[in-house]
Protein backbone atom coordinates (compact mmCIF):
# COMPACT_ATOMS: atom_id res chain seq x y z
CA UNK A 1 0.00 0.00 0.00
CA UNK A 2 1.39 3.39 -0.85
CA UNK A 3 1.77 6.00 1.83
CA UNK A 4 -0.71 8.29 0.17
CA UNK A 5 -3.44 5.70 0.17
CA UNK A 6 -2.58 4.86 3.79
CA UNK A 7 -3.07 8.49 4.69
CA UNK A 8 -6.27 8.71 2.66
CA UNK A 9 -7.56 5.56 4.33
CA UNK A 10 -6.80 6.99 7.75
CA UNK A 11 -8.69 10.17 6.91
CA UNK A 12 -11.67 8.20 5.60
CA UNK A 13 -11.72 6.20 8.83
CA UNK A 14 -12.20 9.33 10.89
CA UNK A 15 -15.33 10.43 9.04
CA UNK A 16 -17.73 7.98 10.72
CA UNK A 17 -16.18 8.98 14.04
CA UNK A 18 -17.04 12.59 13.41
CA UNK A 19 -20.57 11.70 12.45
CA UNK A 20 -20.88 9.59 15.60
CA UNK A 21 -19.69 12.53 17.65
CA UNK A 22 -22.32 14.77 16.09
CA UNK A 23 -25.09 12.28 16.81
CA UNK A 24 -24.04 11.57 20.38
CA UNK A 25 -23.49 15.18 21.30
CA UNK A 26 -26.88 16.05 19.83
CA UNK A 27 -28.64 13.32 21.81
CA UNK A 28 -26.73 14.07 24.99
CA UNK A 29 -27.60 17.74 24.91
CA UNK A 30 -31.24 16.96 24.26
CA UNK A 31 -31.24 14.66 27.27
CA UNK A 32 -30.08 17.48 29.54
CA UNK A 33 -32.82 18.09 32.07
CA UNK A 34 -34.23 21.51 32.53
CA UNK A 35 -35.97 23.63 30.04
CA UNK A 36 -33.93 26.48 28.58
CA UNK A 37 -37.18 28.14 27.60
CA UNK A 38 -38.34 28.24 31.21
CA UNK A 39 -34.92 29.30 32.43
CA UNK A 40 -34.80 32.27 30.14
CA UNK A 41 -38.43 33.28 30.43
CA UNK A 42 -37.41 35.14 33.54
CA UNK A 43 -38.84 35.67 37.00
CA UNK A 44 -42.41 36.45 35.98
CA UNK A 45 -42.86 33.78 33.34
CA UNK A 46 -46.28 32.46 32.44
CA UNK A 47 -46.95 29.20 30.60
CA UNK A 48 -47.69 31.27 27.48
CA UNK A 49 -44.47 33.24 27.61
CA UNK A 50 -42.52 30.00 28.07
CA UNK A 51 -44.28 28.47 25.08
CA UNK A 52 -43.46 31.58 23.04
CA UNK A 53 -39.78 31.25 23.88
CA UNK A 54 -39.79 27.51 23.26
CA UNK A 55 -41.16 28.17 19.81
CA UNK A 56 -38.63 30.89 19.06
CA UNK A 57 -35.81 28.52 20.08
CA UNK A 58 -37.21 25.78 17.85
CA UNK A 59 -37.57 23.42 20.80
CA UNK A 60 -41.17 22.53 20.02
CA UNK A 61 -40.21 20.50 16.97
CA UNK A 62 -39.62 16.74 16.98
CA UNK A 63 -36.12 15.40 17.66
CA UNK A 64 -35.38 14.12 14.12
CA UNK A 65 -36.51 17.45 12.69
CA UNK A 66 -34.29 19.30 15.15
CA UNK A 67 -31.40 17.02 14.21
CA UNK A 68 -31.88 17.58 10.49
CA UNK A 69 -32.06 21.30 11.03
CA UNK A 70 -28.88 21.06 13.06
CA UNK A 71 -27.09 19.13 10.32
CA UNK A 72 -28.23 21.67 7.78
CA UNK A 73 -26.87 24.50 9.89
CA UNK A 74 -23.61 22.65 10.41
CA UNK A 75 -23.18 22.23 6.69
CA UNK A 76 -23.36 25.98 6.30
CA UNK A 77 -20.92 26.51 9.15
CA UNK A 78 -23.62 27.72 11.50
CA UNK A 79 -23.15 26.31 14.99
CA UNK A 80 -26.17 28.13 16.31
CA UNK A 81 -26.43 30.80 18.94
CA UNK A 82 -25.55 30.36 22.57
CA UNK A 83 -28.42 31.33 24.81
CA UNK A 84 -26.17 32.14 27.73
CA UNK A 85 -23.73 34.49 26.05
CA UNK A 86 -26.14 35.57 23.37
CA UNK A 87 -23.42 35.33 20.70
CA UNK A 88 -23.10 32.91 17.83
CA UNK A 89 -21.40 29.78 19.10
CA UNK A 90 -18.83 29.94 16.34
CA UNK A 91 -17.68 33.43 17.30
CA UNK A 92 -17.69 32.45 20.98
CA UNK A 93 -15.48 29.48 20.29
CA UNK A 94 -13.19 31.40 17.99
CA UNK A 95 -12.59 34.11 20.58
CA UNK A 96 -12.10 31.60 23.37
CA UNK A 97 -10.16 28.83 21.69
CA UNK A 98 -6.86 30.76 21.54
CA UNK A 99 -7.04 31.36 25.29
CA UNK A 100 -7.36 27.64 25.97
CA UNK A 101 -4.74 26.69 23.41
CA UNK A 102 -2.23 29.24 24.64
CA UNK A 103 -2.65 27.98 28.20
CA UNK A 104 -2.36 24.36 27.12
CA UNK A 105 0.67 24.96 24.92
CA UNK A 106 2.53 26.87 27.60
CA UNK A 107 1.70 24.18 30.14
CA UNK A 108 3.04 21.54 27.77
CA UNK A 109 6.18 23.56 27.16
CA UNK A 110 6.87 23.85 30.88
CA UNK A 111 6.06 20.21 31.27
CA UNK A 112 8.45 19.22 28.47
CA UNK A 113 11.26 21.38 29.80
CA UNK A 114 11.05 19.65 33.15
CA UNK A 115 9.92 16.17 32.21
CA UNK A 116 12.28 15.32 29.35
CA UNK A 117 15.50 16.05 31.27
CA UNK A 118 14.02 14.25 34.28
CA UNK A 119 13.15 11.28 32.12
CA UNK A 120 16.63 11.16 30.60
CA UNK A 121 18.27 11.40 34.00
CA UNK A 122 16.05 8.66 35.33
CA UNK A 123 16.86 6.45 32.35
CA UNK A 124 20.63 6.72 32.78
CA UNK A 125 20.39 5.07 36.19
CA UNK A 126 17.16 3.08 36.34
CA UNK A 127 16.03 2.50 39.93
CA UNK A 128 18.67 4.89 41.18
CA UNK A 129 17.86 7.71 43.55
CA UNK A 130 17.03 10.10 40.72
CA UNK A 131 14.76 7.56 39.08
CA UNK A 132 12.88 6.88 42.28
CA UNK A 133 12.59 10.56 43.14
CA UNK A 134 11.39 11.45 39.65
CA UNK A 135 8.82 8.70 39.68
CA UNK A 136 7.66 9.79 43.10
CA UNK A 137 7.36 13.45 42.14
CA UNK A 138 5.69 13.07 38.77
CA UNK A 139 3.27 10.52 40.15
CA UNK A 140 2.46 12.97 42.92
CA UNK A 141 1.85 15.62 40.27
CA UNK A 142 -0.59 13.51 38.32
CA UNK A 143 -2.36 12.58 41.55
CA UNK A 144 -3.25 16.17 42.38
CA UNK A 145 -6.77 17.29 41.65
CA UNK A 146 -6.06 20.25 39.34
CA UNK A 147 -8.69 22.50 40.90
CA UNK A 148 -7.15 21.92 44.30
CA UNK A 149 -3.62 22.64 43.07
CA UNK A 150 -4.85 25.77 41.35
CA UNK A 151 -6.52 27.08 44.47
CA UNK A 152 -3.48 26.29 46.57
CA UNK A 153 -1.10 28.08 44.18
CA UNK A 154 -3.45 31.07 44.05
CA UNK A 155 -3.61 31.21 47.80
CA UNK A 156 0.14 31.08 48.24
CA UNK A 157 1.46 33.08 45.31
CA UNK A 158 -1.28 35.61 44.84
CA UNK A 159 -3.00 36.05 48.16
CA UNK A 160 -0.20 35.43 50.63
CA UNK A 161 2.97 36.41 48.78
CA UNK A 162 1.59 38.77 46.18
CA UNK A 163 4.02 37.49 43.53
CA UNK A 164 1.38 36.56 41.00
CA UNK A 165 -1.00 39.14 39.51
CA UNK A 166 -4.70 39.06 40.30
CA UNK A 167 -6.42 36.12 38.60
CA UNK A 168 -8.58 38.20 36.30
CA UNK A 169 -8.25 36.41 33.01
CA UNK A 170 -5.63 36.82 30.29
CA UNK A 171 -4.39 40.34 30.91
CA UNK A 172 -4.29 42.73 33.79
CA UNK A 173 -6.82 45.53 33.61
CA UNK A 174 -4.04 47.98 32.84
CA UNK A 175 -3.42 46.48 29.42
CA UNK A 176 -5.33 46.06 26.23
CA UNK A 177 -4.88 42.90 24.20
CA UNK A 178 -2.23 43.14 21.45
CA UNK A 179 -3.48 43.39 17.86
CA UNK A 180 -4.88 40.00 16.98
CA UNK A 181 -2.86 37.89 14.59
CA UNK A 182 -2.67 34.47 16.15
CA UNK A 183 -4.93 35.11 19.14
CA UNK A 184 -2.07 34.05 21.42
CA UNK A 185 -1.24 37.09 23.50
CA UNK A 186 2.35 35.98 24.00
CA UNK A 187 2.98 35.64 20.30
CA UNK A 188 0.98 38.68 19.25
CA UNK A 189 2.67 40.97 21.74
CA UNK A 190 6.10 39.79 20.61
CA UNK A 191 5.15 40.32 16.98
CA UNK A 192 4.09 43.83 17.90
CA UNK A 193 7.35 44.30 19.77
CA UNK A 194 5.46 45.12 22.94
CA UNK A 195 7.48 43.46 25.68
CA UNK A 196 5.53 44.99 28.50
CA UNK A 197 2.29 43.39 27.37
CA UNK A 198 4.21 40.17 26.81
CA UNK A 199 5.38 40.21 30.38
CA UNK A 200 1.90 41.01 31.65
CA UNK A 201 0.35 38.18 29.64
CA UNK A 202 3.02 35.77 30.82
CA UNK A 203 2.43 36.76 34.42
CA UNK A 204 -1.28 35.96 34.07
CA UNK A 205 -0.49 32.65 32.41
CA UNK A 206 2.07 31.48 34.93
CA UNK A 207 -0.08 30.00 37.68
CA UNK A 208 -2.71 28.23 35.54
CA UNK A 209 0.01 26.92 33.23
CA UNK A 210 2.04 25.54 36.14
CA UNK A 211 -1.09 23.93 37.59
CA UNK A 212 -1.72 22.19 34.32
CA UNK A 213 1.94 21.37 33.77
CA UNK A 214 2.18 19.57 37.11
CA UNK A 215 -0.62 17.35 35.92
CA UNK A 216 0.95 16.54 32.55
CA UNK A 217 4.57 15.95 33.57
CA UNK A 218 4.12 12.35 34.60
CA UNK A 219 3.28 10.80 31.24
CA UNK A 220 6.05 12.68 29.43
CA UNK A 221 8.69 11.86 32.01
CA UNK A 222 7.64 8.23 32.16
CA UNK A 223 7.58 7.94 28.40
CA UNK A 224 10.97 9.58 27.99
CA UNK A 225 12.41 7.26 30.58
CA UNK A 226 10.97 4.14 29.00
CA UNK A 227 11.93 5.13 25.47
CA UNK A 228 15.42 6.09 26.57
CA UNK A 229 15.90 2.81 28.38
CA UNK A 230 14.75 0.94 25.31
CA UNK A 231 17.02 3.02 23.09
CA UNK A 232 20.01 2.67 25.40
CA UNK A 233 19.62 -1.08 25.42
CA UNK A 234 19.50 -1.38 21.65
CA UNK A 235 22.11 -2.75 19.27
CA UNK A 236 23.13 0.51 17.68
CA UNK A 237 23.84 2.15 21.01
CA UNK A 238 25.99 -0.76 22.03
CA UNK A 239 27.74 -0.41 18.71
CA UNK A 240 28.15 3.31 19.22
CA UNK A 241 29.55 2.73 22.68
CA UNK A 242 31.85 0.05 21.41
CA UNK A 243 33.04 2.45 18.76
CA UNK A 244 34.23 4.63 21.59
CA UNK A 245 31.84 7.56 21.20
CA UNK A 246 31.58 9.77 24.25
CA UNK A 247 28.88 9.04 26.79
CA UNK A 248 27.35 12.45 26.22
CA UNK A 249 27.22 11.98 22.50
CA UNK A 250 25.69 8.54 22.76
CA UNK A 251 23.07 9.79 25.19
CA UNK A 252 21.98 12.95 23.49
CA UNK A 253 22.65 12.35 19.83
CA UNK A 254 21.86 8.70 19.27
CA UNK A 255 19.64 7.57 22.10
CA UNK A 256 17.58 10.73 22.55
CA UNK A 257 16.93 11.18 18.86
CA UNK A 258 15.54 7.69 18.62
CA UNK A 259 13.60 7.98 21.82
CA UNK A 260 11.82 11.14 20.74
CA UNK A 261 9.35 9.56 18.33
CA UNK A 262 7.33 7.72 20.99
CA UNK A 263 7.54 10.85 23.14
CA UNK A 264 5.94 12.88 20.35
CA UNK A 265 3.17 10.31 20.14
CA UNK A 266 2.58 10.62 23.85
CA UNK A 267 2.54 14.36 23.50
CA UNK A 268 -0.45 14.24 21.19
CA UNK A 269 -2.41 12.27 23.71
CA UNK A 270 -1.27 14.41 26.61
CA UNK A 271 -2.27 17.49 24.69
CA UNK A 272 -5.78 16.20 24.20
CA UNK A 273 -5.96 15.34 27.84
CA UNK A 274 -4.64 18.65 29.03
CA UNK A 275 -7.22 20.38 26.87
CA UNK A 276 -9.93 18.37 28.61
CA UNK A 277 -8.43 18.82 32.07
CA UNK A 278 -8.13 22.57 31.81
CA UNK A 279 -11.91 22.81 32.13
CA UNK A 280 -11.34 22.82 35.88
CA UNK A 281 -8.25 25.01 35.77
CA UNK A 282 -10.08 27.61 33.71
CA UNK A 283 -12.89 27.62 36.23
CA UNK A 284 -10.53 28.37 39.10
CA UNK A 285 -8.54 31.09 37.32
CA UNK A 286 -11.48 32.79 35.56
CA UNK A 287 -9.69 31.94 32.34
CA UNK A 288 -11.84 32.89 29.37
CA UNK A 289 -11.28 29.65 27.46
CA UNK A 290 -13.60 27.11 25.96
CA UNK A 291 -13.43 24.83 28.99
CA UNK A 292 -15.12 27.24 31.36
CA UNK A 293 -17.48 28.07 28.53
CA UNK A 294 -18.52 24.43 28.31
CA UNK A 295 -19.13 24.08 32.04
CA UNK A 296 -21.41 27.10 32.08
CA UNK A 297 -23.20 25.93 28.96
CA UNK A 298 -23.78 22.51 30.43
CA UNK A 299 -25.16 23.87 33.66
CA UNK A 300 -27.58 26.20 31.85
CA UNK A 301 -28.66 23.53 29.32
CA UNK A 302 -27.30 25.69 26.51
CA UNK A 303 -27.68 23.14 23.71
CA UNK A 304 -25.98 24.99 20.88
CA UNK A 305 -22.98 25.93 22.98
CA UNK A 306 -22.48 22.43 24.37
CA UNK A 307 -22.77 20.91 20.92
CA UNK A 308 -20.43 23.44 19.39
CA UNK A 309 -17.86 22.91 22.11
CA UNK A 310 -17.99 19.15 21.96
CA UNK A 311 -17.80 19.20 18.21
CA UNK A 312 -14.83 21.56 18.18
CA UNK A 313 -13.02 19.50 20.77
CA UNK A 314 -13.76 16.27 18.94
CA UNK A 315 -12.60 17.71 15.63
CA UNK A 316 -9.47 18.98 17.31
CA UNK A 317 -8.78 15.56 18.84
CA UNK A 318 -9.47 13.70 15.64
CA UNK A 319 -7.33 16.05 13.57
CA UNK A 320 -4.51 15.87 16.05
CA UNK A 321 -4.47 12.10 16.19
CA UNK A 322 -4.74 11.99 12.44
CA UNK A 323 -1.74 14.27 12.10
CA UNK A 324 0.28 12.18 14.50
CA UNK A 325 -0.71 9.00 12.71
CA UNK A 326 0.22 10.48 9.37
CA UNK A 327 3.46 11.79 10.74
CA UNK A 328 4.22 8.37 12.09
CA UNK A 329 3.32 6.77 8.78
CA UNK A 330 5.61 9.11 6.94
CA UNK A 331 8.48 8.87 9.39
CA UNK A 332 8.47 5.24 10.33
CA UNK A 333 10.73 3.42 7.87
CA UNK A 334 9.30 0.02 8.79
CA UNK A 335 5.94 0.82 7.21
CA UNK A 336 7.49 1.25 3.81
CA UNK A 337 9.31 -2.07 4.13
CA UNK A 338 6.29 -3.95 5.31
CA UNK A 339 4.22 -2.91 2.35
Amino acid at each position, binding site marked *: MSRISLVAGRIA*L*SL*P*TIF*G*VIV*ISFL*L*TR*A*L*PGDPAAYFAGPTATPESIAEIRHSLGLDRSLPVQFLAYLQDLATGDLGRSISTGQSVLSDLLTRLPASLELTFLALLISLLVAIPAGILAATR*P*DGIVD*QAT*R*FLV*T*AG*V*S*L*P*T*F*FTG*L*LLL*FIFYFKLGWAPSPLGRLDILYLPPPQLTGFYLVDSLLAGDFETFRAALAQLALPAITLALF*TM*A*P*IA*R*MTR*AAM*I*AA*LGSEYIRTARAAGLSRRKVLFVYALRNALL*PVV*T*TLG*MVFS*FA*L*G*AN*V*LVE*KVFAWPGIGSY*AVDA*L*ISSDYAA*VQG*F*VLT*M*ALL*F*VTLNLLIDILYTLLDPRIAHES
Partner: protein
Amino acid sequence: MRVDPTTGEAVPLPAAPQGTQGRWKDAAGERLRLFVYVARGSTTTMLAMAMATLFVLVAILGPAILPFDPLASNPQAALQPPSADHWFGTDNLGRDVFSRVLAATRLDLGIAFGAVALSFVFGSLIGALSGYFGGWVDAVFGRLIDVIMAFPLFVLAMGIVAAAGNTVENIVYATAIINLPFYARIVRSEIAIRREAGFVQAARLSGNGDLRIIAVHLFPNVLPPLMVQLSLNLGWAMLNAAGLSFIGLGVRPPTPEWGIMVAEGSNFIISGEWWLALFPGATLMLAVFTFNLLGDGLRDLVDPRQRT
Protein backbone atom coordinates in the same frame (compact mmCIF):
# COMPACT_ATOMS: atom_id res chain seq x y z
CA MET B 1 4.92 1.17 23.02
CA ARG B 2 1.38 2.33 23.69
CA VAL B 3 0.13 5.19 25.71
CA ASP B 4 -2.53 5.03 28.30
CA PRO B 5 -4.40 8.23 27.71
CA THR B 6 -6.07 8.39 31.11
CA THR B 7 -2.79 9.05 32.75
CA GLY B 8 -0.91 9.37 29.54
CA GLU B 9 1.44 6.78 30.90
CA ALA B 10 3.15 4.17 28.92
CA VAL B 11 1.47 0.82 28.99
CA PRO B 12 3.78 -2.06 28.31
CA LEU B 13 3.68 -3.82 25.02
CA PRO B 14 2.11 -7.23 25.26
CA ALA B 15 4.32 -9.67 27.03
CA ALA B 16 5.50 -12.56 24.93
CA PRO B 17 2.54 -14.85 24.19
CA GLN B 18 2.11 -17.57 26.72
CA GLY B 19 1.58 -21.01 25.38
CA THR B 20 -1.10 -22.92 27.18
CA GLN B 21 -3.17 -22.59 30.25
CA GLY B 22 -0.78 -24.64 32.25
CA ARG B 23 2.12 -22.54 31.28
CA TRP B 24 0.18 -19.48 32.21
CA LYS B 25 -0.36 -20.85 35.69
CA ASP B 26 3.34 -21.46 36.02
CA ALA B 27 3.95 -18.00 34.78
CA ALA B 28 1.51 -16.63 37.36
CA GLY B 29 3.42 -18.26 40.17
CA GLU B 30 6.62 -16.92 38.78
CA ARG B 31 5.11 -13.48 38.54
CA LEU B 32 3.98 -13.59 42.14
CA ARG B 33 7.46 -14.48 43.26
CA LEU B 34 8.85 -11.77 41.06
CA PHE B 35 6.37 -9.30 42.51
CA VAL B 36 7.44 -10.07 46.05
CA TYR B 37 11.02 -9.69 44.89
CA VAL B 38 10.32 -6.42 43.14
CA ALA B 39 8.25 -5.11 45.99
CA ARG B 40 11.01 -5.88 48.44
CA GLY B 41 13.48 -4.09 46.27
CA SER B 42 11.34 -1.01 45.84
CA THR B 43 10.48 0.97 48.92
CA THR B 44 7.90 2.99 47.05
CA THR B 45 5.99 -0.07 45.93
CA MET B 46 6.06 -1.48 49.45
CA LEU B 47 4.82 1.81 50.75
CA ALA B 48 2.08 1.92 48.13
CA MET B 49 0.94 -1.58 49.04
CA ALA B 50 0.79 -0.71 52.72
CA MET B 51 -1.18 2.45 52.01
CA ALA B 52 -3.57 0.74 49.63
CA THR B 53 -4.26 -1.87 52.30
CA LEU B 54 -4.89 0.89 54.79
CA PHE B 55 -7.34 2.67 52.48
CA VAL B 56 -9.20 -0.54 51.76
CA LEU B 57 -9.34 -1.35 55.48
CA VAL B 58 -10.75 2.07 56.30
CA ALA B 59 -13.29 1.67 53.53
CA ILE B 60 -14.37 -1.73 54.84
CA LEU B 61 -14.47 -0.79 58.52
CA GLY B 62 -16.03 2.55 57.62
CA PRO B 63 -18.60 3.68 60.18
CA ALA B 64 -17.18 1.45 62.91
CA ILE B 65 -14.06 3.54 63.42
CA LEU B 66 -15.41 7.08 63.23
CA PRO B 67 -14.83 9.26 66.28
CA PHE B 68 -17.89 11.43 65.45
CA ASP B 69 -21.06 11.18 63.39
CA PRO B 70 -19.98 12.59 60.02
CA LEU B 71 -23.43 14.12 59.43
CA ALA B 72 -24.20 15.56 62.85
CA SER B 73 -23.90 19.32 62.93
CA ASN B 74 -22.85 21.17 66.02
CA PRO B 75 -23.32 24.92 65.92
CA GLN B 76 -21.17 25.51 68.99
CA ALA B 77 -18.15 23.92 67.34
CA ALA B 78 -18.29 25.41 63.84
CA LEU B 79 -15.08 26.18 61.95
CA GLN B 80 -12.68 25.09 64.67
CA PRO B 81 -9.06 24.59 63.67
CA PRO B 82 -7.47 21.14 64.13
CA SER B 83 -7.17 20.15 67.78
CA ALA B 84 -6.79 17.08 69.95
CA ASP B 85 -10.56 16.51 69.79
CA HIS B 86 -10.97 17.26 66.12
CA TRP B 87 -7.79 16.19 64.37
CA PHE B 88 -8.76 17.79 61.08
CA GLY B 89 -10.84 20.59 62.62
CA THR B 90 -14.55 21.14 62.03
CA ASP B 91 -16.45 22.52 59.06
CA ASN B 92 -18.93 25.38 58.75
CA LEU B 93 -21.68 23.26 60.31
CA GLY B 94 -19.47 22.02 63.12
CA ARG B 95 -19.08 18.55 61.64
CA ASP B 96 -15.85 16.72 62.37
CA VAL B 97 -13.68 16.85 59.24
CA PHE B 98 -11.64 13.83 60.27
CA SER B 99 -14.75 11.66 60.58
CA ARG B 100 -16.02 12.93 57.26
CA VAL B 101 -12.74 12.20 55.53
CA LEU B 102 -12.74 8.67 56.93
CA ALA B 103 -16.40 8.13 56.09
CA ALA B 104 -15.79 9.35 52.55
CA THR B 105 -13.18 6.65 51.93
CA ARG B 106 -15.83 3.98 51.44
CA LEU B 107 -17.79 6.04 48.94
CA ASP B 108 -14.78 7.25 46.96
CA LEU B 109 -13.15 3.85 46.75
CA GLY B 110 -16.56 2.41 46.00
CA ILE B 111 -17.12 4.76 43.07
CA ALA B 112 -13.64 4.13 41.72
CA PHE B 113 -13.78 0.35 42.13
CA GLY B 114 -17.32 0.17 40.79
CA ALA B 115 -16.55 2.24 37.72
CA VAL B 116 -13.30 0.45 37.00
CA ALA B 117 -14.91 -2.96 37.49
CA LEU B 118 -17.69 -2.06 35.05
CA SER B 119 -15.34 -0.77 32.40
CA PHE B 120 -13.11 -3.80 32.97
CA VAL B 121 -15.96 -6.23 32.36
CA PHE B 122 -17.60 -4.48 29.43
CA GLY B 123 -14.38 -3.19 27.93
CA SER B 124 -12.90 -6.70 28.01
CA LEU B 125 -16.03 -8.16 26.48
CA ILE B 126 -16.08 -5.65 23.63
CA GLY B 127 -12.33 -5.95 23.12
CA ALA B 128 -12.39 -9.74 23.15
CA LEU B 129 -15.23 -9.97 20.64
CA SER B 130 -13.63 -7.43 18.29
CA GLY B 131 -10.22 -9.00 18.58
CA TYR B 132 -11.38 -12.54 18.11
CA PHE B 133 -13.98 -12.17 15.39
CA GLY B 134 -12.55 -9.16 13.57
CA GLY B 135 -14.56 -8.14 10.52
CA TRP B 136 -17.73 -6.16 11.00
CA VAL B 137 -17.87 -6.83 14.77
CA ASP B 138 -14.49 -5.20 15.06
CA ALA B 139 -15.53 -2.39 12.72
CA VAL B 140 -18.69 -1.54 14.67
CA PHE B 141 -17.12 -1.67 18.11
CA GLY B 142 -14.02 0.03 16.79
CA ARG B 143 -16.02 3.00 15.57
CA LEU B 144 -17.96 3.15 18.83
CA ILE B 145 -14.73 3.25 20.81
CA ASP B 146 -13.33 5.87 18.43
CA VAL B 147 -16.39 8.01 19.00
CA ILE B 148 -16.03 7.83 22.77
CA MET B 149 -12.33 8.61 22.50
CA ALA B 150 -13.01 11.58 20.25
CA PHE B 151 -14.74 13.36 23.11
CA PRO B 152 -12.83 15.29 25.71
CA LEU B 153 -13.39 12.57 28.28
CA PHE B 154 -14.00 14.71 31.33
CA VAL B 155 -16.55 16.72 29.38
CA LEU B 156 -18.25 13.54 28.24
CA ALA B 157 -18.52 12.46 31.88
CA MET B 158 -19.93 15.88 32.76
CA GLY B 159 -22.46 15.58 29.98
CA ILE B 160 -23.58 12.12 31.01
CA VAL B 161 -24.01 13.08 34.65
CA ALA B 162 -25.74 16.33 33.76
CA ALA B 163 -28.13 14.53 31.43
CA ALA B 164 -28.82 11.54 33.66
CA GLY B 165 -28.83 13.36 37.01
CA ASN B 166 -26.20 13.53 39.70
CA THR B 167 -26.55 10.30 41.61
CA VAL B 168 -23.77 8.01 42.71
CA GLU B 169 -24.82 5.37 40.17
CA ASN B 170 -24.65 7.83 37.30
CA ILE B 171 -21.19 9.01 38.35
CA VAL B 172 -20.10 5.38 38.33
CA TYR B 173 -21.65 4.78 34.90
CA ALA B 174 -20.15 7.94 33.43
CA THR B 175 -16.70 7.09 34.77
CA ALA B 176 -17.07 3.55 33.49
CA ILE B 177 -18.01 4.70 30.01
CA ILE B 178 -15.05 7.02 29.63
CA ASN B 179 -12.68 4.30 30.84
CA LEU B 180 -14.14 1.57 28.68
CA PRO B 181 -12.09 2.27 25.53
CA PHE B 182 -8.76 1.62 27.25
CA TYR B 183 -9.72 -1.87 28.32
CA ALA B 184 -11.38 -2.61 25.00
CA ARG B 185 -8.29 -1.56 23.08
CA ILE B 186 -5.83 -3.51 25.21
CA VAL B 187 -7.91 -6.68 25.10
CA ARG B 188 -8.61 -6.35 21.40
CA SER B 189 -4.97 -6.07 20.40
CA GLU B 190 -3.82 -8.81 22.76
CA ILE B 191 -6.43 -11.21 21.47
CA ALA B 192 -6.06 -10.23 17.84
CA ILE B 193 -2.37 -11.17 17.79
CA ARG B 194 -3.09 -14.56 19.32
CA ARG B 195 -6.28 -15.62 17.63
CA GLU B 196 -4.42 -17.69 15.02
CA ALA B 197 -1.72 -18.86 17.42
CA GLY B 198 -0.94 -22.56 17.61
CA PHE B 199 -2.53 -23.19 20.98
CA VAL B 200 -5.75 -21.52 19.85
CA GLN B 201 -5.96 -23.58 16.71
CA ALA B 202 -5.28 -26.69 18.76
CA ALA B 203 -8.11 -25.79 21.10
CA ARG B 204 -10.38 -25.15 18.16
CA LEU B 205 -9.55 -28.50 16.60
CA SER B 206 -10.30 -30.31 19.84
CA GLY B 207 -13.86 -28.98 19.61
CA ASN B 208 -13.87 -25.93 21.87
CA GLY B 209 -16.41 -23.22 21.03
CA ASP B 210 -15.38 -19.65 20.25
CA LEU B 211 -16.56 -18.24 23.56
CA ARG B 212 -14.79 -20.94 25.49
CA ILE B 213 -11.60 -20.28 23.59
CA ILE B 214 -11.84 -16.59 24.36
CA ALA B 215 -12.63 -17.05 28.02
CA VAL B 216 -10.36 -19.95 28.87
CA HIS B 217 -7.50 -19.82 26.42
CA LEU B 218 -7.09 -16.25 25.35
CA PHE B 219 -8.33 -13.98 28.11
CA PRO B 220 -5.92 -15.08 30.84
CA ASN B 221 -3.07 -13.86 28.67
CA VAL B 222 -4.53 -10.36 28.68
CA LEU B 223 -4.92 -10.15 32.41
CA PRO B 224 -1.48 -8.86 33.37
CA PRO B 225 -1.56 -5.66 31.27
CA LEU B 226 -5.19 -5.19 32.30
CA MET B 227 -4.20 -5.27 35.95
CA VAL B 228 -1.79 -2.41 35.39
CA GLN B 229 -4.48 -0.44 33.63
CA LEU B 230 -6.87 -1.21 36.46
CA SER B 231 -4.65 0.14 39.15
CA LEU B 232 -3.78 3.27 37.22
CA ASN B 233 -7.43 3.83 36.40
CA LEU B 234 -8.54 3.67 40.00
CA GLY B 235 -6.70 6.87 40.74
CA TRP B 236 -8.03 8.57 37.67
CA ALA B 237 -11.58 7.51 38.49
CA MET B 238 -11.27 9.19 41.88
CA LEU B 239 -9.98 12.41 40.34
CA ASN B 240 -12.85 12.30 37.91
CA ALA B 241 -15.51 11.98 40.59
CA ALA B 242 -13.86 14.79 42.55
CA GLY B 243 -13.78 17.01 39.46
CA LEU B 244 -17.46 16.38 38.84
CA SER B 245 -18.20 17.39 42.43
CA PHE B 246 -16.16 20.55 42.04
CA ILE B 247 -18.42 21.83 39.28
CA GLY B 248 -21.54 20.79 41.15
CA LEU B 249 -22.27 17.59 39.25
CA GLY B 250 -21.04 15.19 41.86
CA VAL B 251 -22.30 13.33 44.88
CA ARG B 252 -25.17 14.96 46.72
CA PRO B 253 -24.68 16.82 49.96
CA PRO B 254 -24.32 16.28 52.81
CA THR B 255 -22.82 12.91 51.92
CA PRO B 256 -19.15 13.05 52.80
CA GLU B 257 -17.06 12.71 49.65
CA TRP B 258 -13.51 14.01 49.18
CA GLY B 259 -14.17 15.95 46.00
CA ILE B 260 -17.22 17.76 47.28
CA MET B 261 -15.44 18.53 50.55
CA VAL B 262 -12.58 20.15 48.65
CA ALA B 263 -15.02 22.05 46.48
CA GLU B 264 -16.96 23.35 49.47
CA GLY B 265 -13.84 23.93 51.50
CA SER B 266 -12.18 25.88 48.71
CA ASN B 267 -14.45 28.81 49.53
CA PHE B 268 -12.93 28.89 52.99
CA ILE B 269 -9.25 28.85 52.06
CA ILE B 270 -8.99 32.59 51.48
CA SER B 271 -10.72 33.35 54.76
CA GLY B 272 -8.13 31.29 56.62
CA GLU B 273 -10.06 28.09 57.33
CA TRP B 274 -7.65 26.04 55.28
CA TRP B 275 -8.34 22.73 57.00
CA LEU B 276 -11.71 22.32 55.32
CA ALA B 277 -10.17 21.83 51.89
CA LEU B 278 -6.66 20.73 52.76
CA PHE B 279 -7.37 17.47 54.56
CA PRO B 280 -9.85 15.95 52.13
CA GLY B 281 -7.70 17.26 49.26
CA ALA B 282 -4.57 15.73 50.70
CA THR B 283 -6.35 12.46 51.40
CA LEU B 284 -7.71 12.35 47.86
CA MET B 285 -4.25 13.03 46.53
CA LEU B 286 -2.77 10.37 48.76
CA ALA B 287 -5.28 7.78 47.62
CA VAL B 288 -4.77 8.56 43.93
CA PHE B 289 -1.03 8.60 44.51
CA THR B 290 -1.16 5.23 46.23
CA PHE B 291 -2.96 3.54 43.38
CA ASN B 292 -0.76 5.17 40.78
CA LEU B 293 2.37 3.97 42.55
CA LEU B 294 0.87 0.53 42.87
CA GLY B 295 0.12 0.55 39.16
CA ASP B 296 3.71 1.50 38.53
CA GLY B 297 4.92 -1.38 40.63
CA LEU B 298 2.60 -3.75 38.81
CA ARG B 299 3.86 -2.47 35.49
CA ASP B 300 7.42 -3.29 36.42
CA LEU B 301 6.24 -6.76 37.24
CA VAL B 302 4.34 -7.27 34.01
CA ASP B 303 6.98 -5.85 31.77
CA PRO B 304 10.33 -6.33 33.41
CA ARG B 305 12.01 -5.04 30.27
CA GLN B 306 11.10 -1.53 31.27
CA ARG B 307 13.23 -1.99 34.31
CA THR B 308 16.16 -3.02 32.19
